């Protein structure tokens, strides 16, 4: 192949690479902001299922802290969204995953009141449990996950923080024990962790940040 032949062959490739990059860059430019707003909205909506909009006055998404190190048996980074009211800690919402699901990690959102250490609620963000069996952990499919509201270490007692099959207090599902066991375990570990570390967790949070409207 002659030199000009090579150029003639390669040129369309280069042109299409440039055109393609331009197309993707343009699409990215025009959608970036909207995608970010969407993601924030989805996240806020989830957070607001656990804590009321008036329960905090800081910029909860921006104040999120990543928990460093291997805590709570999580392989994925754990995020804590700190809720402050009038500069004082009000609650913490953890976004974590538990590795011991039936079919991969279960991603959870766990809200805990700062003072009482009671659960504000738990929601499942993502999972790959068996449809029809394990997916009853979703709040859309069953009210199982809603029953953790106001629970705490002590209600039930720590040794009863298991599914019924393991001698605990919480229902498992017919045909699926591993999934609820994983969720109960994750919540139990999170409650203990929070109780032991809550002072340090909130030590680094700025006292006052503007809540975006």
């Amino acid at each position, binding site marked *: 192949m002659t030199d000009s032949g090579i150029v*003639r*062959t*390669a*040129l*369309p*490739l280069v042109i*299409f*690479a440039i*055109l*393609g*990059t331009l*197309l*993707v860059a*343009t*699409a*990215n430019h*025009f*959608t970036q902001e*909207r*995608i970010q707003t*969407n*993601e924030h909205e*989805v996240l806020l909506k989830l957070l607001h299922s656990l804590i009321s909009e008036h329960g905090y006055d800081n910029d909860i998404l921006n104040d999120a802290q990543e928990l460093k190190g291997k805590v709570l048996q999580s392989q994925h980074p754990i995020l804590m969204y700190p809720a402050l009211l009038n500069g004082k800690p009000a609650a913490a919402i953890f976004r974590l995953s538990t590795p011991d699901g039936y079919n991969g990690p279960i991603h959870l959102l766990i809200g805990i009141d700062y003072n009482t250490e009671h659960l504000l609620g738990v929601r499942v963000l993502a999972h790959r449990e068996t*449809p*029809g*069996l394990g997916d009853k952990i979703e709040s859309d499919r069953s009210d199982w996950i809603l029953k953790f509201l106001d629970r705490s270490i002590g209600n039930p007692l720590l040794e009863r923080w298991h599914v019924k099959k393991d001698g605990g207090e919480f229902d498992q599902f017919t045909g699926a024990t591993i999934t609820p066991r994983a969720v109960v375990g994750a919540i139990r570990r999170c409650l203990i962790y929070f109780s032991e570390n809550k002072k340090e967790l909130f030590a680094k949070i700025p006292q006052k940040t503007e809540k975006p409207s």
Partner: protein
Amino acid sequence: MNTHFETIVRDGLWINNPGLVQLLGLCPLLAVTSTVVNGLGLGLATLLTLIVSNCSVSLARRWIQPEVRLPVFVIIIACTVTAIELIMNAYFHELHGILGIFIPLIVTNCAILARAEAFASKNNVIDAFMDAVMMGLGFLLVLVALGGMRELLGNGTLFSNAQLMFGEGAKDWIVTLSSNYPGFLLAILPPGAFIGLGVLIALKNWIDSRLSSPAPARLPAIPVTNS
């Protein structure tokens, strides 16, 4: 000219349907068709990708040397899909979340590369556009039919989650067979997708064989001769 377009239409929708005959793009076809709306969402995204890729391949076909045609096709398809994914993420955020990985995976849907290679690189833009629309529609119809079958059997509903695509007003589109339908798990799980697709293919073949022999033409009995 008319018959020419007719061939393209028939090829895409029936005779050479990418879902039922070419059996291309099975991975998304089987994975996302648990509801009508999911199937429709992926079908539309695929249709759009096909149109853009077929048209640009056809427009550029004279300048693309045969040695580099495949990389060029792949660049075109990959960039189109990425752009569509971004747009879906921005305007149909929840649906994008449900379809998840299968939107970027449209890149690997062989149906699209196959149309670029087999049709668009050899035909003019108008034909390539028609071919893309018909092939895309053919694929979309299979996605919707399979989604409908599985949703109806598995959950006893149709058009659930329509609000993800058509806005809040579409929330009432959901058709529920009976309020206490027990659900049929198999239809929702992956095996249900395979079985459902098998049923659709069988149905198509049955219709074809019915059409090709209009009269119940019995083979005349061959007189037995001494052998």
